[in-house]
Every structure is written in structure tokens, then in C-alpha cells.
């Protein structure tokens, strides 16, 4: 199988590529609507600003093919901003429209804690998760973000807390996303990526 990485000109595409290579999975980068329409497995990496990702998707006309692929049930994994983009909007760029695949608004973590939420944290399982299958309950994952998605969502499979509780893992059908970076999360992250690849196969 080949994982299609959506390369919108920013983000952590190369580190995701390396992480997939380490578990023996081939990846290609695409940045066109045809590339997305033809993909059998999609991965949307992302770091940085919400507006950078949303603007790039719209400028490259990737929004529509991406929404269609998700609607067709093409296995999809969003990472970090790739999770946040799935929601309706984000306080980080209030005038822009998110993909709206999941209900709710991404909001800033509270200033009562150090921001960004940067480093290794654990997650709390809130629903059975295929993505986290076999991952030890006390595993740490690497986070680097200042905005986060609401925790009370039907698709939320695990939450984390930093000042407030937020969605760390979401899954709904073949749609998966993580707020943390599995590609930077050591063995636990590698196991999660393996789970995604075998679910997609």
C-alpha cells in the first residue's frame, strides 16, 4: 500500500515520510486535486498556523476533493493541524472556514498554563479506539500546539488535558486524527501509525 501525503507547502511532511519509512510503508506526496482524488489512503500532516493550512487547501483547490474522498470513506489520518482542520472553525483564524467534517470550534488553550502545550503527555481513552489498539495505557505522545478541539464530541476516542481537557484522538468510520504527533512519538507513535496503515489496507 502507498500512503498519500497531502503536501500543502508547509508542515511536517518529511518527518511523517521518515516515520512511515521506518515502519516499512511507502508514501507519496501530492499537492493537486487529482492526486487526492486518486488516493487510496490519505494523510494530512500539519504544524503551524490554522490559516496557513486552510488557505493553502483553498488556493490549491484541495478542499473539495478532500471532502469527497473523506465522504467516500477513503482512510484518512490528520495530524495536529490536520485534526484541527476537520472542525468547523478555529479561534486562531476566526474568519476562515474549517473543513467542517466534525462539529465544533477549535479554541485557544487557557493562559493559566505554559503555552504552547509542548512535550510528552498521556491521553485518556474515552471510547474504544482502533487507532490506539495495543498502545499501552500509560504511553506518552508528543504534543506541540496552543489551540485544541473540544473534548465532548461523539467521534472523540481519547482526550488529553493541559489547562482544559481537549480531543487528542478522534475517529469516525475511516476518518482518524490525532492532536499529537505520532511521527515524533517514539515507539507508541510508530504503533499508532502501523494501526492506521493496517486499518487502511
Amino acid at each position, binding site marked *: 500500500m502507498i500512503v498519500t501525503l497531502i503536501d500543502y507547502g508547509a508542515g511536517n511532511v518529511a518527518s511523517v515520510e521518515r516515520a512511515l519509512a521506518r515502519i516499512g510503508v511507502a508514501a507519496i506526496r501530492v499537492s493537486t486535486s487529482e492526486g487526492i482524488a486518486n488516493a487510496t489512503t490519505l494523510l494530512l500532516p500539519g504544524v*503551524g498556523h490554522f490559516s496557513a493550512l486552510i488557505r493553502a487547501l483553498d488556493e490549491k483547490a484541495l478542499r473539495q476533493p478532500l471532502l469527497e474522498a473523506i465522504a467516500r470513506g477513503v482512510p484518512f489520518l490528520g495530524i495536529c493541524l490536520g485534526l484541527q482542520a476537520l472542525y468547523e472553525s478555529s479561534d486562531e483564524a476566526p474568519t476562515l472556514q474549517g473543513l467542517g467534517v466534525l462539529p465544533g470550534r477549535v479554541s485557544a488553550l487557557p493562559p493559566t498554563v505554559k503555552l504552547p*502545550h*509542548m512535550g510528552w503527555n*498521556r491521553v485518556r481513552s474515552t471510547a474504544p479506539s482502533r487507532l490506539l489498539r495495543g498502545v499501552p495505557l500509560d504511553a506518552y505522545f*508528543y504534543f506541540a*500546539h496552543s489551540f485544541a478541539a473540544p473534548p465532548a464530541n461523539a467521534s472523540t476516542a481519547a482526550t488529553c488535558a493541559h489547562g482544559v481537557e481537549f480531543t487528542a484522538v478522534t475517529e469516525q468510520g475511516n476518518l482518524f486524527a490525532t492532536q499529537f*504527533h505520532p511521527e515524533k512519538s*517514539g*515507539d507508541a507513535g*510508530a504503533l499508532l501509525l502501523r494501526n492506521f496503515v493496517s486499518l487502511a489496507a
Partner: protein
Amino acid sequence: MTLARRIIPCLDTDGARVVKGINFIGLRDAGDPAELAARYNAEGADELIVLDIAASRDRRPTFLETIRRVAAELAIPLTAGGGIRALEDARAVVRAGADKITVNTAAVEQPELISQLSEEFGAQAVVLAIDAKHETGNWDVRIRGGRDSAHLDAIAWAQKGVELGAGEILLTSVDRDGTQSGFDVPLTAGISRAVSVPVIASGGAKLPEHFLQAFSEGEADAALAASIFHDGTQSIRSLKQFLAQSGIPVRFPC
């Protein structure tokens, strides 16, 4: 759920090899960067920093190749720095595989660089490195490898850096660096309390107790060391075991 306190080995390189020495004098070879990176990744390091301490223009391609080789070994975040003076330098380092960029002297000389980096890569990718030296009543910011005074107060500069878009402070005590007499705890706590972003304590680490002090009294979010890890004086695993027994949340590789 609490964030684990991070242990970060630092690879000071001459571009190609890891080197060891105080104030650039008497540099000694301390190994291959990719081999050390693989070892630290397996031992449970939480991140890795690789620096080009020579940072000369003509050796730049060599350092970028070093970043590529190191990144290939890591399933943890990588920060790279040394000689980043412009956005284009940072882009090259990120393309080579760094997740974060660290800037020091160039940020003092042109603070707008911090904002440019933050806008392009996000605050989480911008690590402001501050070398601080104790003076009567405050800490003075040092530049050019600790040699010259920047005539800035370290706490004020840290706050300014965060305001400009830095997402993390890498704080090195010039007084303690290389002495193995422990981190400068008052300095670390002073900066950590003054800024809203995570602080990495650096300079002076030898004993596990030094790390415990940096995390407890120093309120550091992460702690960095170089030679004690390279020469095997301290293993990351046993350091983390000590910290866990002392009540500090740390991550063990599964």
C-alpha cells in the same frame, strides 16, 4: 495528565562531528552525530538538539547533511541551530529535517527574525536560545558564544522574545556551562516564572540531583546536557529512573 519533564541531549558539532570543549578552545572529537542520535533515541531522550558551533558559511552543506543523517535516526523531535541568520537559513534547516529552529546571537542583533520565523513555522518551532551571565543584581545576555555582552537583561529579553513569537526558551548559564557544578537554579526559576512558554535549563549538569533541582526549584520544563551523556557518565534511562523515584513525571520508552 501532566506533561513529562523532558531530558534533551545536545550535540555540539563542528558541522560534521560532535565536538566537546569549553568556549571553543581545545575541541575534542566526541563521536558521530547520527550514531549518538540513534543511541539517545533508543535510550529514551525526549528530544535532541544539534548545533553547528563553527557555523561558517562554507561548511553549511556539511551541517545540513548532518541534520539529515540525525533526523533519519530519530522518532523524537529535533531542534537545529547555529548560524541561522535569516529566514532562508531556517528553511534549509527545516527542509533537512529539523522540527524546531534555535536562534541566539542573530535574534539579539535582529529581533524581527524571531517574528519572521514564528510566522513561517509557528511559535512551537522557534526556540530562543539565551546565554546568561550572572552580574550584580541580574543576568546579562551574552552573545557570540558567550564572549560579548549584549547589554540586555536576560529576564527582559526572554519576555521580549516570547512577545515576538518564540515558543520556547533554551536558557544556558554561561557561569555554569562546562563546570559540571549544577544548573543555575535561581536563573532558571527567574526566567521560568517570567515567561509563559516552556524553558529548557542548560549549563552545568552532571549529577541526577542537578536535574531534580532544575525541575523542582528551577521550575524548568526540560533540561539539557551534552558531555555527561556522550561520554557515558550518565545514562538517560537511569537519570529518568532517579527522577521518577523523586516524583518528577518523566516518560519511559515503551
